[in-house]
């Protein structure tokens, strides 16, 4: 393991990069998920159609493909766009960090759409009816009755989506992002210990996913605390 001395710094910064991608992708995914779910639940056929197309495409296409499409596609689009204003520019690309974060966010956002939609529909109708009978307004019903219960229903799947985002970040190394897998590749060309390096990457990911799983488990306990023990 002393072989890795000198590389720990790079791994550390690679990990920070991974965590940053994770956070940005997570925010994008949640936003897309909420928008998608409300579109799917809306009365507008157009919105439902768009949301349906979104979930079908982004859940059906391989993550790597979406990532490559987004990265190279955006490069072409941006280059063309900037060349309109400044023809001397040869090539501009969206930095891998952003391309990766946005692409992953869009992909997992499609899964979150389904999760949020399912959670919304899963709230006991009887409770909503009771709230209406008590003459609560729609937004009040959402805030006090629907949302707290949706959260509980969505939590397990939400946890899985977070794990997906985490693991998908490894793919961004393919388009050149200098995160831990990329660091391992570089280090390998110098110290030639691929198994050691890649297992280290695996274990770092394992550590992070373990943390996420524990946090989600704790959140689930909290969310379900008033459901236990009614005899």
């Amino acid at each position, binding site marked *: 393991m002393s072989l890795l001395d000198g590389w720990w710094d790079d791994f550390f910064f690679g990990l920070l990069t991974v965590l940053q991608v994770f956070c940005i992708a997570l925010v994008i995914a949640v936003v897309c998920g909420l928008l998608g779910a409300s579109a799917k639940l809306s009365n507008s056929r157009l919105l439902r159609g768009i949301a349906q197309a979104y979930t079908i495409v982004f859940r*059906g296409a391989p993550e790597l493909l979406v990532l490559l*499409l987004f990265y190279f596609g955006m490069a072409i689009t941006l280059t063309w766009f900037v060349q309109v204003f400044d023809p001397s520019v040869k090539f501009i690309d969206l930095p891998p960090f952003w391309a990766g974060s946005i692409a992953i966010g869009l992909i997992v956002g499609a899964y979150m759409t389904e999760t949020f939609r399912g959670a919304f529909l899963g709230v006991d109708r009887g409770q909503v009816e009771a709230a209406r009978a008590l003459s609560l307004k729609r937004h009040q019903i959402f805030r006090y009755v629907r949302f707290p219960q949706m959260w509980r229903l969505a939590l397990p799947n939400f946890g899985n989506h977070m794990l997906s985002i985490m693991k998908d970040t490894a793919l961004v*190394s393919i388009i050149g992002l200098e995160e831990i897998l990329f660091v391992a590749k570089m280090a390998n060309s110098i110290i*030639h210990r*691929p198994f050691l390096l890649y297992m280290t990457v695996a274990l770092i990911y394992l550590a992070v996913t373990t943390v996420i799983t524990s946090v989600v488990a704790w959140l689930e306990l909290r969310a379900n605390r008033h459901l236990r023990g009614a005899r």
Partner: protein
Amino acid sequence: MNFDVSLIATSLPKILHGLGLTLNLLVVSTLIGLVLAVGILLMRLSKRAWLVWPAKAYIYFFRGTPLLVQLFVIYHGLPQFGFIRHSILWPILREPYWCSVIALSLNTAAYVSEILRGGVLGVDKGFVEAGKALGLSKFQRASRITAPLAVRLALPAYGNEIVSMLKSTALASTVTLMEMTGVARTIVADTFAPYEIFIAATIIYLVLVWIIQTGFSMIETYANRHARRT
């Protein structure tokens, strides 16, 4: 920027050259993975701690790390060891194809064993008790009552896992395999037309996903024919 719609159409057949390998990877890994998954499930459900522990550790590792990293450990990492390079397995382990199959199989086995476990846990205890009360042996209860019901419960999740596997085959392109994504990447490198080519590839994948989902829908309907929809 010119977006050439016809390029989408003309690239489709070229990308389809990779379809054979994509399906090959999918089918072989699914089958091997399923066999492994049943083994791991039995270990996981066993009463003997020395069987449960390795199964749990296996599942923990393969579900907690990215498939891409697992692939790299196997393809790039194993050659680090002399004893592997000189073993009789070397002709297999140096091949990107077999490394991809191994990585995909090991990975899916972890997920499928948990899916099957979910099915087993979902079987109503009452049915098993009725089996006990009738005098059926443990093996008879497991094979005639638990297993058939568990499989039915697991079908939807298993269908999703197969779709997931299909998408995972794309990662084989990172270790030089020319399945569909690999072919697409090569074409893009030549033509500098990422949108058209990758969209074409996406269309093919979406069609395959649709086929898998429809197939599973039919299987699920058939398997649940005993349950009336009230």
